[in-house]
């Protein structure tokens, strides 16, 4: 777009044609106040706060609806403008309850800030304010009606941003009121975006209301622990009688890849940490009963058992099952522990996507993977399988808003009528079980389509091939050779393979595979690791199903499970595991968490809190043989040094990462084809999140969770 030159308060400003005046002002640090204007939502011109003086125009104009034109001369701060804004604030305060001292938004309220800026301290009115009763729309959304200033942000973010359209306006004039779609309650995705975007305390969170004053919290940014999208959530942490308490999750500074977005999980489902059923002490099985024990006792037991098993039966008798929820550094250390200390490649994790197949398909190619940011800016997207609205809410938001704001073309191939079809340029429904993979064969070939929707699929293939720039996103429906065929069929495209858990990709990248080292390097290509570590078992390890068989045959003697719950997931028989078991999972009741049920729970359950499990494992490993010298230092930064040194694809800008920004990593290893049967999708929806979700009060409280049909399998990780 060509640039346009304008003058704002005497400053010369250049901005691209089409820029809104309010944004042009912002670009040079001139703040024009607004309530109803919100970037990337439709324009309203309703609050009249952004009135500015434009030369040659008799009336003040709204900066939020004015597109800049060449030579425009603008004043943003004259007595007339100041008075206009003051007048608006006065009118708003006329009916606004001044309950700021008890309002959740007190201190974080845009109306307070405007009053502070424009000074409307005196009330000119005598008549009583309009009052209406507060409403509860859902377990997490409350609406204090008199506080609402009718900026319509909630209505728009719900409709335009979320494509949910659960909010609207009732009545007219001074009786106008925001109301939910079900008259007195919400039926929606419960994302809480309406609360987040509310400039005042009209919409408040059921999980947070009246708990604290905002300035009593510390704000701690952290990646969300639930799905694989990697949203940043800011936890409001407050000192309480029992230590520190997490009282709120939101996207306070909007600095994550999620920008404005958070779903119900990122906003509320941190509450599993407060579950009363959470185990906070080690448990040791004594006379058949799990009994609380000291950490020293627990470490000694586990270390001794590992040491004895290793000495008597060798590393092949020990299995390790890692986590999709722990950090890259933890996963790296875990596989290193398995390979160096336990001398085995028997390591696996719950695979939800075929990352090694994509790594193999992309071997030798660079720049062929897409990031979450690319999804928001790509001119065209092909989505094969998955249901991002349910499984990847941020991804769905990025796709939706790319279509809405940038007119991206979206092609959807799915066996279900997923919600994103509403944004699709073309939607092709394919048969269940195998339809997506069959589509890849069709896409890769030139044969005409013989089945249903032939004309539509043909059209889709032609259009997708003709797209000069394309991001292809696929779910676990595609595995193995289909992925290579897809990559070869679309040489112009960048790819995204969807894993299901917070760090599914990290578990794969860090080599929680029996035949792949970190960076998808096959064992026989691991000389750099062998050199660095001083040792590397060369015998390929067992995958989890093989470990299970081996245990049944009495060969596998010990299993170390970290942050995972493989039994339900892989439908193996827990009776087979008559061995030493250590469950270092998320800290919930062991028989639930690691369902070695039917009277066969784990021998030890170990707590893993909000803190890293590092210290715990450090101790285990020391006890396991006094083997510390073989291990890296237990400092995440030092481990990251080692990862950067040894793992292909992790040459990332470290400063950027440490500043809390996202970093895109490429697949640089060789990968390998894996048994597709080992990939088991999580099947989590918007309101479930495996074990974490089962212990989240909020997720279990919303009615939409109850309405959903039972997931085919309760997610277990």
């Amino acid at each position, binding site marked *: 777009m060509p640039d346009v030159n304008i003058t704002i308060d005497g400053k010369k400003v250049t901005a691209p044609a089409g820029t809104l005046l309010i944004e042009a002002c912002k670009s040079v640090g001139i703040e024009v106040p607004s309530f109803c204007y919100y970037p990337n939502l439709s*324009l*309203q*011109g*309703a*609050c*009249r706060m952004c*009135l500015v003086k434009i030369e040659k125009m*008799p*009336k*003040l104009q709204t900066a939020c*609806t004015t597109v800049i034109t060449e030579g425009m001369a603008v004043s943003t701060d004259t007595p007339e403008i100041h*008075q*206009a804004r003051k*007048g*608006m604030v*006065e*009118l*708003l305060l*006329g*009916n606004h309850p001044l309950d700021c001292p008890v309002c959740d938004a007190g201190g974080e309220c845009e109306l307070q800030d405007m009053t502070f800026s424009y000074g409307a301290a005196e009330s*000119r*009115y*005598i*008549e009583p304010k309009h009052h209406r009763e507060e409403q509860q729309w859902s377990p997490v959304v409350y609406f204090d009606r008199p506080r609402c*200033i*009718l900026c319509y942000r909630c209505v728009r973010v719900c409709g335009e941003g979320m494509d949910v359209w659960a909010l609207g*306006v009732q*009545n*007219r*004039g*001074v*009786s*106008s009121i925001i109301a939910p779609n079900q008259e007195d309650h919400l039926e929606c995705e419960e994302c809480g975006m309406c609360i987040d975007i509310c400039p005042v305390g009209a919409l408040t969170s059921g999980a947070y209301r009246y708990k604290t004053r905002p300035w009593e919290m510390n704000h701690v940014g952290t990646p969300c622990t639930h799905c694989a999208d990697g949203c940043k959530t800011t936890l409001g942490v407050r000192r309480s009688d029992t230590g520190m308490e997490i009282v709120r999750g939101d996207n306070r500074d909007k600095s994550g890849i999620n920008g404005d977005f958070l779903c119900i999980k990122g906003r509320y489902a941190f509450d599993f940490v407060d579950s009363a059923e959470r185990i906070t002490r080690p448990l040791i099985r004594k006379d058949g009963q799990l009994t609380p024990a000291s950490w020293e006792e627990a470490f000694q037991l586990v270390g001794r058992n590992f040491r004895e098993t290793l000495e008597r039966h060798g590393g092949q008798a020990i299995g390790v099952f890692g986590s999709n929820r722990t950090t890259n550094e933890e996963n790296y250390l875990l596989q290193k522990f398995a390979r160096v200390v336990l001398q085995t490649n028997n390591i696996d994790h719950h695979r939800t996507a075929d990352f090694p197949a994509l790594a193999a398909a992309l071997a030798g190619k660079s720049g062929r993977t897409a990031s979450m940011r690319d999804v928001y800016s790509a001119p065209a997207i092909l989505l094969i399988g998955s249901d991002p609205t349910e499984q990847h809410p941020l991804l769905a938001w990025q796709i939706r808003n790319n279509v809405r704001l940038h007119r991206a073309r979206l092609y959807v191939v799915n066996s279900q009528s997923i919600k994103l079809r509403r944004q699709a340029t073309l939607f092709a429904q394919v048969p269940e079980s195998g339809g997506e993979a069959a589509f890849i064969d069709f896409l890769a070939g030139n044969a005409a389509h013989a089945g249903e929707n032939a004309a539509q699929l043909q059209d889709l293939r032609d259009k997708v091939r003709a797209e000069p720039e394309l991001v292809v996103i696929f779910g676990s429906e595609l595995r193995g050779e289909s992925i290579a065929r897809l990559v070869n069929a679309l040489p112009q495209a960048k790819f995204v393979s969807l894993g299901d858990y917070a760090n599914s990709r990290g578990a794969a990248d860090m080599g929680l595979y029996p035949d792949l080292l970190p960076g998808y390097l096959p064992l026989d290509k691991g000389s750099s690791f062998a050199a660095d570590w001083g040792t590397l078992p060369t015998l390929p390890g067992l995958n989890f199903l093989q470990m299970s068989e081996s245990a049944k045959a009495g060969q596998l003697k010990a299993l170390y499970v970290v942050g995972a719950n493989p039994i339900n997931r892989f439908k193996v028989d827990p009776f087979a595991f008559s061995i030493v078991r250590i469950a270092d999972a998320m800290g919930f009741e062991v028989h639930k968490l690691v369902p070695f049920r039917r009277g066969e729970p784990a021998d030890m359950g170990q707590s893993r809190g909000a803190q890293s499990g590092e210290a715990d494992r450090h101790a285990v490993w020391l006890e396991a043989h006094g083997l510390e010298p073989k291990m890296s230092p237990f400092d995440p930064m030092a481990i990251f040094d080692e990862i950067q040194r040894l793992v292909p694809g992790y040459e990332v800008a470290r400063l950027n990462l440490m500043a809390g920004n996202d970093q895109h990593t490429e697949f640089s290893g060789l990968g390998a084809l894996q048994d597709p049967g080992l990939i088991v999708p999580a099947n989590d929806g918007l309101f479930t999140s495996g074990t974490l979700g089962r212990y989240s009060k909020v997720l279990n409280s919303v009615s939409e969770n109850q309405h959903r049909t039972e997931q085919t399998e309760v997610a277990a990780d």
Partner: protein
Amino acid sequence: MADLVSHPDEIKIVSRRFGQGATKLDRYLELDGYKALQKALSMQPDDIINTVKNSGLRGRGGAGFNTGMKWSFVPKQSPKPKYILCNGDESEPGTCKDRLIFEHDPHAVIEGVVIAGLAVGSTQGYIYIRGEYRYLSEIMQKAIADAYARGFLGQNIFGSGRDFEVYWHGGAGAYEVGEESALMESLEGKRGIPRIRPPFPAVVGLWGGPTVINNAETLASVPHILLGGAEWFANLGTPKNGGTRLFCLSGNLERPGVYELVVLDDTACIVKFALRTMKFYQHESCGWCIPCREGTDWLKKTLIRFHSGGGLMKDIDNMYYLSENMLGRTFCPLGDAAAMPMMAFIKKFRQEFEDHLEGRPCACEGAAVEQLPVMAD
């Protein structure tokens, strides 16, 4: 329905068929009905637009923009259908001219709509009539049905090979919908709230298509212009404002009727009148923007108390201050329409407001006023 009034000096153009039974199609045809449309069918679109432009016809809805000019803004080529919209949401206090046109000369509106369609290349028109004019809907709907039956509407009108569909649509009782973009929102089934402009309706209007939206009187004038000629019509008016206008007279008059403006004599209480005016605007504010939504409400609330004798001296200045804060700052002109008279009342009749102070309720009403507790300062 009100009796028709007349004045010896009137030049009857738009009202010439009033009281002549022109709602009946045959009678309308006797009175030169649909001749203009037939003429238009033989004209080039640009000729129709130029004729209307040269006649000096200006919008009769209030803003007074040159009608032919407005039509010329519609793009010739459009990927989306173009629409003609007749704004019959006449709700301005004291305005009742369109009502008479719908009541006495509905076919003139239909004819004007179709001619506008021929001028801009549209084949669909909507006649939107104020919800409170429910009793006129039958007249209008019958007129449309009759025109269809004769082949004046629908496919191949007058055997010309051209098509034009006309639909009737009733409002739901909102003054705001008289604002053209709010009317389009309403017609699309949404809340009657004005749109941000630009884009203007001529480019992006109803359902996103280029749209001509004209007042009923404007459209009813068009057939007369085509028959009488641009020059004739232009000469009837002032240099830049062609033709005649319907004026509505109501208030303290011997013969209220359609001529012009609200007229009050010195027996009317200005506070009471201000209250009635603000009640109207408060009731009709769509609520979209802050100054109109909140401002009209506080003016009304203050005036109720003031009128009943609970007024304070500072209320007078506050009401003026409040109106000033509304004037020119609202989303649409409704806020101005409320603020301007309020400021005028206080400026011109301050003494009458002061006479209501100190617990004196309205002298014109005695005890019959709405009583609110009198509040101390």
